[in-house]
């Protein structure tokens, strides 16, 4: 009984803290329509800052609290809104998700940079009034910290409810979500309200972090803290991101269940603690299952700022061929480490392709692509390897089986979420990713099910050999590089074919207007599901290739943060393009790696400037996130800019010949070792990016003028006005030729029984 009470009280307090974090999510989502994935990271940053003030510099608690909760946290929220989130109006859900993930990764990298977790002794974070301040209720001792947490949570709940129902500013915050323009026409200031709510949301995150950290009682770690508040996501979902009472209930249920698991599950069960860790994820999943289906919205046509143009099949073939040639030429001049890096980059590019397929075709996003890779790798490890020792090879059947299993697992994950809006699938995949990292990839013990003995992840490491397909052995580095490049090209071209098929067109229609598609008799869910399964399978294949390139993988290779970064960079590259995936792989693996190597080399070469170069090396860890955050400004991605630049080259023969000629010369010089590979990289960059820009400016200005680019039909009226020819063409396409439409006056004067 004593234990029960003790744990119940702990659970209530933990639930209170979860609720505070979740209510912050609800507040910001309510006013800006952005689900703040960075909520946990803000909490984490606040915990570290508070630690610095309180124990690092020995400030008194009230001063440190005032500084963190009263000034820094609200300021961070307001700045985040003004600088980043404000620009997201009119962008797709995917862009919103990705930008806030960018903020999350950025804050996390920042914290690891400032408070290097490996350098000093683990930081301890104490309860309020010290570890020994207890209140006594009969024989029951309860830490004051716990009591305070719960009281604050209730106060916050009452306060927020009061704000949203009883104050004009609060009601106006709800009005902003419905229609910011209309609020403006009423005389309200939507931007200011949204900024205030972000300041408030950030305050709530910080408060939750400071309350939770001493309750979990372990050493502070940036990653764990960031993910910890993800547990609050589940609570927020329980309230459907709207209802605060239900959010409170959700938070309590989740927290109580987790504490009871800790209290009563036998500690000799090896999976008790991983089960406790993944509980909130399991909850999130169940909640998604029971949430009622979204009403299809088709009445309001969103004019999104993203623009994606699928290339023609011919362009795809040319691009694919070019890529194979380029990879082959690179292989000739590159050192072995270079080949390895490029191969790894390509395997990541294949995984990123799965995201392009899902997002470009269905407008949904998967935040745990690498976890699907992990599933595939486990399948291959157990069923897809023939031979032993150095003779071991991954079989084709193994890869295919892995793809099938991943697709099925994908279906299982996606089915409940696909009925809902894109955000929910994003969350479901993220929950899945965390679940895989916490529950499956930690499985070291041998289990026996139906007499079948197996260990999912023995010794925490899996060795995956390179594949042998038919008679061809891809064990050599060069051969495997070409295999990966070929795989990327084949899948990429396949996707372009798919996009041009009837199936692809149906998907586009569905993405643009689910309601209209449903009335035409399409099954929206079935279409989305099929795409998700294909996408998961591609992620699986990419994951296997990645593992085969690395050789021996541990669970870090499938870390959720890596998945998030990959999704983010793919969106930055241009999630609507096959080349966006290539960009993601190259950037995330090769570019960052090369940058690091270069900086380290400089730091050694110029030892007097070492501090500066070390600073830049740390800055590189923040770089991808910073780039992700800028997405709001250019939601179509970097590739679309590069494509625009390349279009200039394509349209001018002299420029094209110049660029190709120069590049060939640079390559020849490198191949004959006249210049080094570093020079090759820099010169190539200059040639491909700068020459088109400069050349385009000076040579092309005249030639380009007056040559209008063809505008695809869906963008007519947005990129340029409708002309009579367009209308005629449309009539023809719709078979309206010769159909006499009554004049608009007669239609309007006698609306039979029109309704809203």
């Amino acid at each position: 009984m004593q234990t029960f009470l003790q744990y119940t009280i702990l659970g209530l307090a933990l639930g209170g803290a979860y609720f505070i974090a979740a209510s912050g999510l609800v507040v910001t989502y309510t006013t800006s329509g952005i689900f703040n994935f960075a909520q946990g990271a803000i909490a984490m940053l606040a915990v570290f800052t508070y630690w610095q003030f309180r124990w690092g510099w020995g400030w008194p608690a009230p001063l440190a609290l005032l500084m963190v909760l009263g000034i820094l946290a609200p300021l961070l929220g307001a700045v985040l809104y003004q600088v980043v989130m404000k620009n997201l109006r009119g962008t797709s859900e995917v862009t919103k998700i990705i930008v806030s993930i960018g903020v999350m990764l950025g804050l996390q990298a920042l914290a690891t940079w400032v408070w290097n977790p490996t350098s000093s002794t683990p930081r301890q974070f104490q309860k309020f009034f010290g570890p020994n301040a207890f209140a006594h209720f009969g024989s029951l001792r309860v830490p004051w910290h716990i009591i305070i947490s719960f009281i604050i949570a209730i106060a916050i709940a009452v306060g927020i409810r009061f704000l949203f129902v009883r104050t004009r500013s609060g009601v106006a915050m709800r009005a902003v979500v419905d229609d910011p323009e209309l609020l403006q026409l009423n005389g309200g200031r939507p931007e200011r309200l949204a900024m205030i709510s972000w300041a408030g949301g950030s305050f709530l995150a910080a408060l939750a972090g400071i309350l939770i950290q001493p309750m979990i009682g372990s050493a502070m770690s940036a990653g764990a803290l960031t993910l910890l508040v993800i547990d609050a996501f589940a609570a927020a979902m329980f309230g459907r991101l709207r209802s605060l009472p239900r959010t409170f209930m959700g938070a309590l249920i989740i927290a109580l269940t987790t504490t009871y698991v800790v209290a009563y599950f036998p500690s000799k069960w090896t999976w008790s603690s991983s089960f406790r860790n993944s509980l909130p994820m399991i909850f999130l999943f169940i909640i998604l299952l029971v949430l009622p289906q979204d009403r299809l919205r088709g009445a309001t046509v969103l004019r999104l700022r993203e623009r994606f143009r699928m290339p023609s099949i011919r362009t795809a073939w040319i691009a694919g061929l070019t890529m194979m040639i380029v990879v082959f030429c690179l292989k000739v001049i590159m050192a072995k480490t270079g080949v390895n890096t490029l191969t790894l980059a390509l395997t990541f590019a294949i995984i990123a392709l799965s995201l392009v397929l899902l997002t470009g075709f269905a407008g949904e996003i998967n935040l745990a692509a690498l976890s699907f890779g992990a599933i595939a790798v486990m399948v291959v490890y157990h069923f897809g390897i023939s031979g032993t020792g150095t003779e071991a090879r991954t079989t084709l059947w193994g890869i295919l089986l892995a793809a099938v299993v991943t697709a099925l697992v994908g279906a299982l994950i996606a089915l409940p979420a696909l009925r809902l809006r894109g955000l929910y699938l994003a969350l479901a995949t993220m929950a899945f990713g965390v679940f895989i990292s916490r529950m499956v990839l930690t499985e070291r013990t041998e289990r026996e099910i139906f007499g079948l003995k197996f260990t999912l992840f023995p010794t925490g490491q899996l060795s995956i050999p390179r594949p042998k397909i038919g008679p061809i052995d891809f064990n050599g580095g060069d051969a495997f590089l070409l295999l990966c490049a070929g795989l990327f090209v084949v899948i990429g071209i396949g996707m372009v074919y798919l996009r041009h098929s009837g199936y692809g067109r149906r998907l586009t229609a569905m993405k643009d207007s689910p309601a209209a598609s449903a009335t035409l008799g399409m099954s929206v869910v079935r279409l989305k599901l099929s795409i998700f399964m294909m996408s998961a399978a591609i992620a699986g294949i990419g994951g296997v290739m990645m593992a085969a390139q690395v050789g021996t993988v541990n669970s870090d290779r499938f870390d959720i943060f890596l998945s998030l970064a990959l999704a983010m960079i793919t969106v930055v590259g241009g999630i609507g393009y096959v080349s966006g995936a290539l960009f993601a792989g190259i950037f995330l693996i090769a570019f960052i790696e090369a940058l690091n190597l270069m900086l380290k080399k400089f730091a050694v070469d110029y030892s007097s400037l070492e501090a500066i170069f070390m600073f830049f090396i740390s800055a590189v860890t923040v770089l991808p996130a910073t780039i992700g955050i800028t997405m709001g400004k250019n939601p179509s991605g970097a590739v679309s800019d590069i494509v625009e630049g390349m279009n200039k080259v394509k349209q001018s023969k002299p420029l094209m010949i110049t660029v190709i000629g120069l590049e060939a010369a640079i390559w020849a010089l490198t191949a004959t070792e006249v210049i080094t590979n570093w020079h090759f990289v820099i010169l190539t960059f200059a040639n491909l990016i700068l020459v088109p820009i400069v050349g385009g400016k000076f040579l092309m200005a005249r030639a380009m003028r007056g040559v209008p680019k063809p505008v695809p039909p869906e963008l007519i009226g947005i990129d340029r006005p409708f002309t009579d020819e367009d209308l005629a063409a449309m009539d023809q396409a719709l078979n309206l030729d010769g159909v006499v439409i009554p004049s608009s006056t007669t239609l309007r004067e006698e609306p039979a029984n029109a309704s809203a």
Partner: protein
Amino acid sequence: MSEVHYHEDHGAVDGAPLVELVDVRAAYGTIEVLHGVNLSVPQGSVVALLGPNGAGKSTILKVISGLLPPTSGEVRLAGRMVNGASADQLARIGLCTIPEGRGVFPNLSVRENLWMATMAGVPLAQVEETAYARFPRLGERRKQLAGTLSGGEQQMLSMARALSVNPSVLLLDELSMGLAPLVVANLYEIVAQVSQEGVSILVSEQFARTVLGIAQYAAIVLHGNITRVGTPAELEDELSAAYLGS
């Protein structure tokens, strides 16, 4: 309100137009939609903007209400140039706009919708009193979410806002959209009454016949230009030409 520019030599003169557009051009992105529009709404009168779909009527209203800044030309309110002012500033100095098709916040209750109207300066009690007196139906449903009201009731709610904030200028975009003729006639009767109280009103409408019954002037909008301004009687012929496209 520092961004409201006062125009040197245009004080608010009695009888001078309350709303005036001088050679206004406006664009969405790079596409120009208004190509030099001139228009004036005299104090206390109803001016109807007529024209086919896509002519630019809503865009004219958006420019006046401050939602879309003009690329060139001048927008004047009571003689002051207000080109740089934002929509919320204009709303607080007495411009009331009912936008096309969606004048209410669907997820707020009727009462909360009216509460939002108080940001223009009139206290809630007074707003509610005016609104429920004019539309008793709303009084019965003050707790109901606006999104669940019928189309006609929603339009009543947005009209209620227009009536209760004491605007000096009222911009109405397609009041009739999706409503039964009887409801439309009713709403326009109210509009006529409001204008008699001295409010200057600019209405965009396709439902030409009803609005012409109450308008003092009408302007025909075609392809982003105002092709003709006159009294309703003068415009009969042009009107049918504009709509029938002959």
